[in-house]
Every structure is written in structure tokens, then in C-alpha cells.
């Protein structure tokens, strides 16, 4: 399972991006998207295109966590969303690993995002393999809540200006840790 | 008892506040003397500005002498003459509070401390618009402080 996480400011500026892989079921926390060559911009494209649905959904649901809201089948990308009361949006794209059977295509070259070799890791019952299961939903909720807490603390720093890119290394570390813990 | 006058001196030896009260006829009932203030001070002759300097000189010398005799932590509390009683309180920041009363007055040390804590600190020091130092009494002569001092002296001490 690979993840792509984005925070959008209330004025639709992306202020934070991170890509990471699952750490559950023996995962090593490195993102391995199915189409590594295009993942970088495709992920952003997919995640931003779900904003329309966020807008539709946000008033129908009293909670901040909107759960799984969108799917983009060609890339097997599932989008979950979390809204802060101030209008910032946390969007998480998750992409389950390819089934071992279909893992014949030669993607392997790209070192950072590519390496598709170790796909045996995710068992079929894990969070990673079931992006829509209640367990996954719960795990993402925990993840989002933890990020929310860190986000608030970061936003409280006097040197952070609202709506600016979050460049804090502390925040990035915390997001990585939260990803490791829950996803 | 009657309060005659009250002075505050800052750490630069400057009088930053002075106030005199004429004894009201009612409060001095039974007291033979009816004219204002202690006769011994002769304030009719001297300008009141000199008064403050005189008072400061007195307490300053007295305090230094007391410390020479009794050690650095010693302080004098009051002295009495035939005509009046002078009460003295000094804060560790060297602000000196002096009050002159008639002879019947009990110790005013607590009262002076109260004036410092409840009036001076609250209404002068904590007033953000008042300067930190008060050359010529600037900042001390604000309405809140004056009024509360008036009340304190007339109601609490009377």
C-alpha cells in the first residue's frame, strides 16, 4: 500500500505533501506507486480532482472526518478526506499494492518510487489491501486526528503564516511517524 | 487620629508625590488645636516644596544612621516629636513612603505597606500609560491613585 498525503489551505493552496508506504504487515514505509513514472503528478491530479466531492460532502456530514470519498479506478486510488473547522483539508490517497499475479510489468528501474519487487508483503486481510474496510477507515481516522493535532501545533508557531507552505521538519517527522503508526 | 501629610520619594531621591490634609474640625473634636497642620512644622512660612526636601533629608539620614548602628537590614519605623509622629516605610526598590500624623496615631507601618501594595503598585506601577520613573510626579498623580488614597486616609485611617 502506498500513500500520498496533501494538506490544502482554506484558499486551495497545497501547503504540505508527502508520499509514503505502509509500515504494517512488514512494509518498509517506502512508497511504491503502481505507475512510478507518472505517480508524482498523477497523485496530485487525482487528489485534487476529489475536491469537488469534498465540497459536496462537507455539509452533509457533521464530522470532520469524511471517510473514503472518492475512487479513481484506473490507478486504484482511494481518497479519504478530513476537514478542519478553519477550512483546511487533509486528503489522503491510498493505493493498494498490485496483486502478485499482475505484477509482471517491468517497472522496477526507478529507485525511489519504483521498486515493485516485494509485493508479497501485504496479506489480503490487512489495512493495506482493503482500502474501504471499516478497519482501514478507523486507521485513517486515527491518522488524521493525529495529524490534526500536529497541524494545530504547527499553525500555532508564531513564525508560521496562515496559508503558507508548511516547511517545518518537525511536522514532517510527525506525519511520517503517524503514518508509520496507523497505516 | 489625624493624618497631616504624606510623601513618596523614588529611588532617585526625588519627591514624586506629596499630599497634605487639613484636619477636619469634626475629626479633631476634643483636640484643643483647630488650625491646620502641626504647628511645629511652621508650614505657613515655608514653601511646601522645601517641606518635602526637609522630610527626605531627615528620613534619609535617619535611615542611614539606623543601618550603621543596627546592620544593613535594620530600618526605622517612626519617630515622635512633641507635635507630630513621622511614619516611614521603604520598599526593597528604595521607594520611601512617609506619613506625618498626630501623636495619637498607632503604628502606620502596615498602613504604609498597604498603600504601597494596594494603591501604588496597582494604580501607578501597573498603569501601562504611566512612565516607569516619575520625574516631577508624572504618572503618580493619576485620578485613581489620588482618589483611593483619599478614601484610604479618610475612611480607613480616620
Amino acid at each position, binding site marked *: 500500500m502506498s500513500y500520498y498525503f496533501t494538506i490544502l489551505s482554506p484558499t486551495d493552496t497545497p501547503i504540505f505533501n508527502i508520499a509514503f508506504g505502509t509500515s504494517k504487515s512488514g512494509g518498509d514505509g517506502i512508497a511504491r506507486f503502481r505507475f512510478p513514472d507518472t505517480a508524482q503528478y498523477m497523485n496530485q491530479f487525482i487528489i485534487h480532482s476529489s475536491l469537488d466531492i469534498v465540497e459536496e460532502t462537507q455539509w452533509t456530514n457533521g464530522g470532520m472526518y469524511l471517510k473514503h470519498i472518492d475512487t479513481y479506478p484506473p490507478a486504484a486510488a482511494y481518497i479519504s478526506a478530513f476537514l478542519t473547522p478553519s477550512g483546511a483539508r487533509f486528503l489522503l490517497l491510498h493505493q493498494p499494492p498490485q496483486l502478485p499475479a499482475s505484477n509482471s510489468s517491468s517497472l522496477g528501474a526507478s529507485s525511489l518510487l519504483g521498486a515493485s519487487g516485494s509485493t508479497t508483503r501485504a496479506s489480503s486481510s490487512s489495512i493495506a489491501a482493503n482500502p474501504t474496510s471499516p478497519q482501514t477507515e478507523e486507521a485513517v481516522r486515527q491518522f488524521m486526528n493525529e495529524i490534526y493535532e500536529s497541524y494545530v501545533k*504547527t499553525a500555532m*508557531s*508564531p*513564525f508560521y503564516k496562515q496559508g503558507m507552505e508548511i516547511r517545518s521538519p518537525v511536522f514532517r517527522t510527525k506525519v511520517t511517524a503517524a503514518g508509520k503508526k496507523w497505516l | 487620629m489625624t493624618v497631616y501629610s504624606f510623601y513618596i520619594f523614588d529611588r532617585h*531621591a526625588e519627591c514624586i508625590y506629596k499630599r497634605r490634609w487639613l484636619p477636619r474640625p469634626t475629626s479633631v473634636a476634643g483636640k484643643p488645636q483647630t488650625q491646620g497642620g502641626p504647628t511645629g512644622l511652621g508650614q505657613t512660612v515655608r514653601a511646601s516644596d522645601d517641606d518635602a526636601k526637609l522630610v527626605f533629608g531627615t528620613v534619609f539620614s535617619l535611615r542611614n544612621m539606623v543601618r550603621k548602628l543596627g546592620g544593613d537590614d535594620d530600618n526605622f519605623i517612626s519617630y515622635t516629636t512633641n507635635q507630630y509622629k513621622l511614619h516611614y516605610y521603604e520598599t*526593597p526598590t528604595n521607594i520611601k513612603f512617609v506619613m506625618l500624623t498626630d501623636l495619637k496615631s498607632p503604628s502606620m507601618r502596615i498602613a504604609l505597606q498597604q498603600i504601597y501594595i494596594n494603591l501604588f*503598585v496597582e494604580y501607578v506601577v501597573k498603569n501601562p500609560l504611566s512612565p516607569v520613573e516619575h520625574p516631577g510626579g508624572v504618572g503618580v498623580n493619576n485620578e485613581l491613585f489620588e482618589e483611593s488614597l483619599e478614601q484610604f486616609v479618610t475612611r480607613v485611617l480616620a
Partner: protein
Amino acid sequence: MSATKASRIGEEIWKTRIDKVNAELVTLTYGTIVAQLCQDYDSNYQDVNKQLDKMGYNIGMRLIEDFLAKSGVGRCANFRETADMIAKVGFKIFLNVAPTVTNWSSDNNQFSLIFDENPLADFVELPDDGRAQDELWFSNILCGVLRGSLEMVQMQIEAHFVSDVLRGDDTTEMRVSLVRYIEDEMPPEEE
């Protein structure tokens, strides 16, 4: 007066005589001031440090009166006692922290305050412009507060931070040195 007695006094005053205010309000207010100063001084952090110290100095000159009014303590017998008074009573009642007094110089004129916690710096991450980490002392106002308040009780001191967890140091440490005791001022000579 011993350090433990000072701690007791500080604790007692903190519990009974201090109006409490929301900690985030203080943190955000102070943070905003520093951030604004950084902006106003175009990220010249030396100037920001200086300005914070100056602001603290003005605060200290007033705060000491409030401190004395609330605590009712008298003059300290020596500088060691002063240090305990600052750490265990002063910081306790105004910031609800009690830094550790340590690293005394052999002549007893210099000591360090180690802050385990610093409410002014909660949430703070210094700007990542490559200079703030080396130049800005975020809590420098505290140095000024000590300088101002001790001057009012006839002690000229020098105070500066030597390390700060915000910069990635292990501790937050302030060094305080006694320069001299100030003599009483005499009234100006009459002409």
C-alpha cells in the same frame, strides 16, 4: 533563606495570590510580538534580541514592584539567595516554572538558570532561514526582565542566553552575572 523555603514561598503565592491566565494566550501573544519584531527589523536578529531585552527591561522595572507587593519578601542577604528568589519565587509566580540554579562561579557572582520548560516557547519553531537558529534568542525578553527588576533592587547584572532548545540545544540556559551593587542615590546638591 534556603532554596527549599523559597520554593515554598513561590508555591504558596502561586496558589493563593496570582490571577491565572490562559497559557496559550501568553504564548501566542509573546510569539506574535517576536515574529512581528523579526518582520519589522527585516530579520536582523541581533536587533530583535536587543529590542526584546529592552522590552523586558521595562517590564522588569515594573514587575519587581508587583513581585515585592505579592511576596512581601525583604532584601536578599547575598547573590545566592537572590538567585533562588528569582528561580523559585519570581519565575514560579509569573510563569509557573522553576528553573534550576546551577553552575556557580567560584566568586559566587555568576550562575546559570536551566529551564526545563519555557511557556513562552511552546509551539515555536524558529524560521528556517539558516540564520535564526544561530542568531535569534527567542526568549530574550526574560534577560531584560531580570536586568530591569534587579536594577530596581540595587543590583546591576548582565544576563544572556547561552543555549536554547529551540535552536536544537539540549537545554535552555541563561547565564546571569552580577556586575555590581548600586549605591543609594543622594539628593542633588542644593545650590
